[in-house]
């Protein structure tokens, strides 16, 4: 843990081991995150994809200590960030990490700013809580620089404006400015474009790209948009029902998915290059996380299971299918077979057809 060798770039920046997060509700305990393992390396752009309720956001909130307890409860073997186990830090130590070492960009820029304080004051606040020597004036100067960096026009004027005087896209830019204020080593962007118009989405992604080039911070992009993942990420984590089901480089994942859920996601993308009467969808519903299915949680919706009992009884673990490509499927080696079935249905091979 204490080693800081020359090739520190190969040490994970953040390493999550067996993270579990549950919420007590009136109808039972929701197992939102169920024993996930993953890591992110310095400077890496990691995409996390999965449908709503797959545990993407809860995983990040758990790491940041943002899960309200109770009703929530977070446990893990370790969550190691630069040699420190985040879950064992006290509130004071954790505060120094939040917004300073790791910062977050939230989904809805409309509600993520306090409406009664100016944007400028809220960015300044982010700077000043981590630097007690920073004067009000210096923080203002820095905030204006940041607003300018993320492409907010006339930042001096914008500094003194309230959130309701900003458009959605501008607010998300300001949110990004706030997130990078202290040059964090890790930025977690939780569906940063979901609440925005498509045209604005592209601009925000450009800003995110620019920021990563400027700061070289590792970035986690949570999304349910595979297109975004393809465009932005180095590596991808696919989550389903509170578990990581597949992880690979973005090229590998799209070219050769090793989990039937990933293939299902690819097949259900709207396409311009194929004539279909309707969009394909993964049959069935996401499972209840109060009583998750036994064995593989995807088996009730899976084409690959073909009624085999392993899927129902045995919990698949992440195995390395090829170099750096992990999947949690008992029968991943039969993936080519069902990919061809999908190809026949769609009329085009959905694999690798997304530009990477």
């Amino acid at each position, binding site marked *: 843990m204490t080693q800081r060798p020359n090739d520190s770039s190969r040490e994970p920046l953040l390493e999550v081991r067996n993270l579990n997060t549950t919420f007590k509700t009136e109808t039972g305990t929701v197992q939102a995150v169920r024993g996930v393992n993953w890591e992110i390396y310095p400077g890496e752009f990691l995409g996390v994809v999965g449908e709503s309720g797959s545990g993407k956001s809860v995983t990040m909130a758990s790491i940041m200590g943002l899960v309200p307890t109770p009703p929530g409860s977070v446990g893990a073997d370790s969550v190691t960030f630069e040699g420190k186990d985040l879950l064992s830090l006290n509130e004071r130590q954790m*505060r120094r990490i939040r917004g300073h070492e790791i*910062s977050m960009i939230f989904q809805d820029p409309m509600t*993520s700013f306090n*409406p*009664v304080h100016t944007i400028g004051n809220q960015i300044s606040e982010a700077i000043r809580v981590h630097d007690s020597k920073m004067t009000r004036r210096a923080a203002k100067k820095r905030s204006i620089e940041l607003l300018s960096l993320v492409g907010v026009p006339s930042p001096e004027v914008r500094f003194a404006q309230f959130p309701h005087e900003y458009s959605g896209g501008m607010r998300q830019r300001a949110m990004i400015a706030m997130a990078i204020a202290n040059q964090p080593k890790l930025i977690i962007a939780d569906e940063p474009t979901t609440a925005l118009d498509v045209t604005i989405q592209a601009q925000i992604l450009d800003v995110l790209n620019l920021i990563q080039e400027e700061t070289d911070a590792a970035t986690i992009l949570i999304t349910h948009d595979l297109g975004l993942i393809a465009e932005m990420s180095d590596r991808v984590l696919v989550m389903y029902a509170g578990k990581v089901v597949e992880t690979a480089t973005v090229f590998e994942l799209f070219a050769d998915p090793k989990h039937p859920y990933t293939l299902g996601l690819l097949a259900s993308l709207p396409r311009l290059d194929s004539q279909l009467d309707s969009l394909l969808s993964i049959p069935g519903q996401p499972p209840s996380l109060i009583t998750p299915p036994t064995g593989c949680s995807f088996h009730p919706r899976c084409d690959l299971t073909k009624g085999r009992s392993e899927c129902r009884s045995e919990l698949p673990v992440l195995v390395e299918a090829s170099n750096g490509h992990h999947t949690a499927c008992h029968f991943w080696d039969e993936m080519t077979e069902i990919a061809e079935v999908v190809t026949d249905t769609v009329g085009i091979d959905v694999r690798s057809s997304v530009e990477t």
Partner: protein
Amino acid sequence: MLRYLLRRILIAIPVLLGILFLAFVMTRALPGDPLLMMMSIEEFEASEEFLETRREQLGLSDPLPVQYITWVGEVVQGNLGVSFHRRANVAEVIAGRIGPTALLTGTAVFMALAVGIPTGVIAAIRQNSWFDYTSAAGSMLAISIPNFFLGLMAIYVFSLQLGWLPTGGLNTLGAEPSFVDSLRHLIMPAGVLAAVLIGPYVRYTRQSMLDVLHQDYITTATAKGVKRSSILIFHGLRNALVPLTTVVAIQIPALLAGTVIIETIFTWPGMGQLVLEGISRRDYPIIVGVVLVSAVLVMVFNLLADLLAAVLDPRIRL
């Protein structure tokens, strides 16, 4: 802003005219004759002609519509008339009474806010804790106990049994006026009046705070690394206070009504006591004068509350 103020003042004119009309009709509808109320035993035995002359002098012999128009004409010029009983200018009588009432109600609101806001905030932070339940029960109790009963109990306990505080009045008669003496006289009536207000303040602060603490921007602030205490004040309470301004303003009429009882119990020489005396003596000019002044006060404070809310929340446009 200026246009808004002007509009509010213009809206106030028909409201005041309506209040003038209602006050006039209602006082005249009261059973009893002011003339009989203000007569001595000797006058009682006087002739019918004497009564007629007095009635004439007071302007009570004219038909009601004529009385009303004459009176409104005077009020518009700032003349509230002369008290039947006190035989003094109503405006001057009220002016002498408004100070004590302002002191009493101002102190009561201040006390209620000073207790209610922190209690509400703590109840929200520790939702469903024993503190939360106790404060909820206490608030219900404070709302439910009639203030005349609470006032009498307070006098019994603190004045008669413990002997800590005087039973009433502004100052100790004959003593050198001092701040401490005034405070000792003020604290009990203001406290009893405050008890009625505290309940709603606690409940609204708690609710408002709970709403605010579940907002996304609280999570944002936490994720920025802001201290919990700063979040609660800078991002929590600051936002939660906006709806509270309305609650305080809405309660002002209830507060003024409360002074009628409290001032009577504690012999506090304010407007409440004055209006009660006016009613019992059928002193029409006093009743209507106090009603009018109260109406103006209520409207002014509602306007101030709206302005304050706009200052606290930049999204509110005037």
